[in-house]
């Protein structure tokens, strides 16, 4: 009788061996105590890892009346947007319906009551994370690029990242090329919401980009995080 082709028979024999106390050395030593383990598929954190994906000059002052996103062709009904200041003092969430909105650079209304306080910030100090979804309660799967200065060229892509105690880099690939950038620490400023900028200097007119955030501390690697960004 071939045991490998008869799972029922194999299980029956294994049960008999286990119940009789016999230990097969080929299968290894059975744990003496109750075996327990825990796999956290989704680690709960207090802050977001990717706080913003932005185009345009990161050092230009924000123009609150000109926040815009690069909207691709999509069948999804909603554009979700989170805005976070670098010092963590300001956060905003908003949803935009996309019915009747054409692809391209789309200007969004940002009806903040704190324009006086926010208008002195640089673009990199006010992170925008925007994504397309059927419901904004879900985590982002595909991010779109946002900018505070519509009309200016999108230029380099800046990822604003909240990753401390780890050497963090961003590997990116689009259909024609591959690259890696080491994220830089933001110094001499309050970094409550995010502390790193990772810049992709040129996207070569590609339609989309896949970025993989890698966090390493010596031999310890955190699980890479993959981000898909649409560029056109």
């Amino acid at each position, binding site marked *: 009788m071939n045991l490998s082709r008869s799972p029922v028979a194999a299980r029956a024999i294994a049960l008999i061996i286990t119940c009789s106390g016999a230990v097969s050395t080929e299968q290894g030593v059975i744990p003496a105590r109750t075996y327990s383990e825990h796999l956290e598929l989704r680690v709960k*954190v207090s802050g977001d890892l990717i706080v913003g994906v932005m185009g345009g000059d990161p050092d230009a002052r924000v123009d609150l009346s000109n926040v815009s996103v690069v909207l691709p062709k999509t069948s999804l009904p909603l554009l979700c947007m989170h805005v976070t200041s670098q*010092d963590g003092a300001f956060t905003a969430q908003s949803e935009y319906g996309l019915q009747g909105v054409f692809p391209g650079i789309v200007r969004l209304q940002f009806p903040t009551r704190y324009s006086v306080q926010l208008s002195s910030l640089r673009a990199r100090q006010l992170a925008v994370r925007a994504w397309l979804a059927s419901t904004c309660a879900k985590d982002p799967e595909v991010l779109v690029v946002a900018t505070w200065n519509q009309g200016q060229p999108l230029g380099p892509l800046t990822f604003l990242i909240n990753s401390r*105690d780890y050497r963090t880099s961003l590997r990116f690939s689009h259909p024609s090329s591959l690259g890696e950038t080491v994220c830089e620490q933001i110094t001499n400023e*309050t970094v*409550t919401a*995010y502390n790193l900028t990772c810049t992709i200097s040129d996207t070569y007119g590609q339609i989309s980009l896949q970025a993989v955030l890698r966090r*390493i501390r*010596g031999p310890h*690697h955190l699980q890479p995080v993959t981000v898909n960004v649409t560029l056109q």
Partner: protein
Amino acid sequence: MSYVSKWSMGRYRAVVVTVAATAFVVALVLTLIPVSTVYDVTATTERVDFVANSVMRTIHLDHMQVSSDSAQIEADFSGAVELTVGSKVSITRVGLGRLSIEVTLPDSGSSEVAVLRGQDGKRLPLRLGTYAYFESLVHEDTSGTGGNLVIPISGTIELGRELGAETNATVPLLRTGKVTLVGQSLLDSTQIFEASAADLHLGDGFEITAPETAAEGVIVLNEEPALAVSFRCKARGARVIRPGGGRDRLTVPLQTRLAKDPLVQHCWLAFLFLLGVVKVIKKPELEVK
């Protein structure tokens, strides 16, 4: 009183008024300009950062695993690590956990992050680009062994780190500490006075903002959790970074300088004395016989 003597009195008064005004300006300037201060810091912290300088750039380590970005370089290294000047060194020990040291070059000007010098005398340059990582293979719990691990540090030192919206469950924190500010008189550096003191609390960060000399100190690992740190630095300013991003400046307060700096006190006393003399010397009235 003759016209001539009154004229002399007037001239003396003018001279005294000029000297008093000068004394006032000098006293004001001496009071307001930032004074050199020695920051005497002791703390228990789980993270210390410093930039290696040419004075102290050798660390002696025992049983460390050495790796670069992702590759292991040495499985069990004991010996000295000679750091490249300008390297940023981050030393971490959370609780009674393992000691880890991260070394990063600020730019790619040098191809060596560090040189390992083993106990056998062999030199191994780490040509890793910009990054090296050392982690202790054993828990550095020295209780019962009668030993400790001492790491001398020199350069620009920071304690703890800014606590933000964390994405990890384990965060290396400053636990507790004290900063004593010792003021130094501007013209006579031998005249020192204890200016003030500040406590460092759980989650704070501490950094010197305007150093005049390199900080000199020591990190000690012993039977206690985390790292015991002590260092001194002459500077014109320092700040405590509170959890959530608040920043408190630590300088010698104005009232303390008035109360304790002998030079400032003498200048103000001289001014007050001259002011009194001006009051005593009456303003002459011109009389014509």
